[in-house]
């Protein structure tokens, strides 16, 4: 997942829900959400598509993301397999409960949750009763009488449950007992609130209440291109049709967020794409072409086209994105990292004022650098921490000897130990990046002179730092271990290094399938010799 992964970087700000009608079923497929309790964004559109009739839209000022809501399964830009997975879930769920979607009911429940938030009233049954104007029993009875099948969708969680998840768990448990319809929660896991998901739906609760989780991936760029092209041609009467390269750029930079892609397209068209044509006609298709993939020939697109080698030709491709007002942040990140990794040295005769080293230090003598690492770090607008870890992920391939490796690795270690004191961490961060960047540059003994022959590295893709995902995963695992093996009360270290591995070996009767699955997960190691990223 070289590129796909970096798409994640940009997804945190996706919450730009354009729908003004709160009670509608959630509309557009949302991007990038890894789904959690039961379902995510796409699901709701799937649902809408599966179970709902057509809707009429007439207003002109309407957002395209609203107007082109999918109305049937076929129109969904989600991978077929996912659609199937969700359809299957629905089949299962409605078999269990015997219901179909009724929009009003979802509104009621939505209202209920909103109200619960407002009044802190927590009794699920009475709340449903109150908002529906009858008791839940009669409500359910009524439902059966109508033979109207229902799915309850909760799209946004009231904030109070993030603060006190126990209340929420109680409600869920109650619902499990008395609820008659499948309940669907849609949550997006942006980078920062994944802990919220952990908290709202801890593993043990998921197993206890038998909550299925379906996780959605970002929509594939090829799918997006298709969708955008369809929308663009449908709208083409009013605007000049945007060129294929414009659409590609939008698709690629949206990192799988359909709504944002459609909005970008609409705004770009509104701005008159003729302007853009001048910009993007000859040199455009900037990023995609570079990797020799031409979308017209149906080659695969990938996110993170932004990642380029940072040498020289970097700027031309940005323009289109800037004109379109895209939100591609990774571009800066990988460009910055690339600049450092592919650093260049200048001819010392042109920099006469550089002092030379005494002879006994001759081995450390280098020609003057043409990159200013501090400036790169500053311009990247990223926290030093982040930049360092991306550099760390990628530096190894640029070094050829173990001695260089030894030195560079030590500098990274130095950089990290600068952040040891949390009181001074903020202040020292910029120094820490400098140590890492300059440490790497100096350690690279292949390029000590401006005319050092460059090893043919070939085309080295840059990778997203794995540290953040790894440590997040580790934290989640520790939390799950604790939740699932509460009764064993061991310290987490003992639990993970001794108890779980031996539970796996000695197979005592475990209490629930969640434990079994978790133990297996925790004791299986990937041994692939390929460097997986």
């Amino acid at each position: 997942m070289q590129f796909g992964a970096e798409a994640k970087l940009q997804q945190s700000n996706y919450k730009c829900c354009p729908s003004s009608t709160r009670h509608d079923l959630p509309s557009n497929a949302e991007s990038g959400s890894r789904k959690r309790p039961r379902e995510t964004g796409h699901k709701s559109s799937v649902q809408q598509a599966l179970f709902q009739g057509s809707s009429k839209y007439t207003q002109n000022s309407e957002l395209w993301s609203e107007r082109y809501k999918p109305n049937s399964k076929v129109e969904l830009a989600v991978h077929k397999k996912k659609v199937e997975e969700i359809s299957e879930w629905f089949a299962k769920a409605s078999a269990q409960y015997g219901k179909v979607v009724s929009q009003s009911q979802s509104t009621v429940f939505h209202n209920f949750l909103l109200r619960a938030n407002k009044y802190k009233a927590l009794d699920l049954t009475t709340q449903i009763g109150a908002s529906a104007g009858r008791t839940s029993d009669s409500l359910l009875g009524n439902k059966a009488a109508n033979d109207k099948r229902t799915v309850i969708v909760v799209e946004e969680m009231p904030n109070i449950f993030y603060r006190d998840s126990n209340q929420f768990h109680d409600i869920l448990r109650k619902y499990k007992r008395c609820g008659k319809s499948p309940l669907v929660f849609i949550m997006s896991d942006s980078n920062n609130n994944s802990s919220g998901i952990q908290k709202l739906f801890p593993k043990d609760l998921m197993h206890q209440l038998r909550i299925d989780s379906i996780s959605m991936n970002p929509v594939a760029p090829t799918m997006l291109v298709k969708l955008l092209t369809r929308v663009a041609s449908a709208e083409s009467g009013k605007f000049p049709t945007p060129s294929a390269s414009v659409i590609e750029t939008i698709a690629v930079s949206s990192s799988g967020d359909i709504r944002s892609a459609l909005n970008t397209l609409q705004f770009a068209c509104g701005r008159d794409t003729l302007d853009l044509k001048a910009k993007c006609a000859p040199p455009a298709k900037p990023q995609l072409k570079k990797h020799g993939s031409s979308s017209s020939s149906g080659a695969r697109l990938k996110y993170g086209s932004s990642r380029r080698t940072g040498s020289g030709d970097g700027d031309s491709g940005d323009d289109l994105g800037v004109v379109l007002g895209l939100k591609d942040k990774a571009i800066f990140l990988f460009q910055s990292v690339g600049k450092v990794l592919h650093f260049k040295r200048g001819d010392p005769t042109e920099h006469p004022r550089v002092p030379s080293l005494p002879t006994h230090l001759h081995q450390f003598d280098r020609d003057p650098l043409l990159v200013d690492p501090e400036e790169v770090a500053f311009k990247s607008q990223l926290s030093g921490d982040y930049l360092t870890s991306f550099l760390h992920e990628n530096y190894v391939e640029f070094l050829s000897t173990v001695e260089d490796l030894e030195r560079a690795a030590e500098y990274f270690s130095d950089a990290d130990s600068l952040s040891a004191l949390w009181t001074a961490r903020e202040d020292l961060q910029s120094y820490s990046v400098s140590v890492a960047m300059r440490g790497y540059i100096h350690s690279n003994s292949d390029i000590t002179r401006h005319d050092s022959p460059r090893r043919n590295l070939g085309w080295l893709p840059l990778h997203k730092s794995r540290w953040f995902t790894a440590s997040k995963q580790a934290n989640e695992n520790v939390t799950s271990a604790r939740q699932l093996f509460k009764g064993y009360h061991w310290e987490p270290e003992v639990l993970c290094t001794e108890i779980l591995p031996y539970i796996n070996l000695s197979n005592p009767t475990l209490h629930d399938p969640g434990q079994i699955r978790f133990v297996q997960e925790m004791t299986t190691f990937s041994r692939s010799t390929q460097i997986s990223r």
Partner: protein
Amino acid sequence: MSLWVDKYRPSTLAKLDYHKEQAAHLRKLVEGGDFPHLLVYGPSGAGKKTRIMCTLRELYGPGVEKLRIEQSQFTTPSNKKLEISTISSNYHIEVNPSDVGHNDRVVIQELIKNVAQVNQLDTSTQKNFKVVVLTEVDRLSKEAQHALRRTMEKYMATCRLILCCNSTSKVIPAIRSRCLGLRVSAPSVDEICQILTTVCKKEGLTLPKEMAEKVAEKSGRNLRRALLMCEACRVQQYPFNPERDVSEPDWEIYLRETATLIAQQQSPKRLLEVRGRLYELLTHCIPPDVIMKGLLKELLQVCDGQMKAEVVQNAAYYEHRLQQGQKAIYHLEAFVAKFMAIYKRFLEEGIADIF
């Protein structure tokens, strides 16, 4: 079905299998009435927790065995909510403050205050103090340790602390001097054999002597591990076959393979491969210092005398940084790179000597 480790854990000081003299001391301490703060330390799997629970039982009777698991909430001065799970009885409360990371100071202070403010209900028949058991004290931040020192003195009247850790080197001297240090050393191989045999007898199994020795050796004098291993062997094959290898946790095998990879080839490409494996271990919640120690142990086997010293010194250096820093992977990788460089130089010198 519970694990043997839990099932056959001795519950009273009298039932302890080894270090009996120490157990007798503990009993005298309890009888003496003026129970001090305790700092229990020693290697993993030596029986520290068992001894603590036995002492508590000696103090309060079987009531301490009625445990409940609770979530306690604390609020930091910056209004952040912290949740921590505690295990408690009517007489004691056990908590692992390092669970909350660098906010451990707040937890320590609030928790002890809460416990100490409530007096024991029935002081005539019971002790007039409660006990707070803190585990993994060596992982407490310095701030928390200083907070602990002050709180210890302040609430001495109503509350005693039992601190539990692997090594006292990370506990500040001020705390060490306020506690009665109690080192629980690892049981000897013979003692472990003895216990394994008794446990197997209770399970209705016969454990051949060689098998018991093999398991005891393999466990590295860690009783918990020896029992877990023995149980795993039982599941895999019974009657026990002393010929058969004792199975090890998957992550240890994985770590050993990783060490072999490092020793086989020293190149940037190999380092990348190793890094992937380090990440894999980290995501499986193997603590970085355990990884470092495991790697060192395996790597030392390919080193000769003089190199050993150099490698160990570097391992210690990076392990120290690991504790200080934030991103373990940098330091683990730096150690691997260092070893690769040292080992490569060694190999090259060896070749030069031959010619």
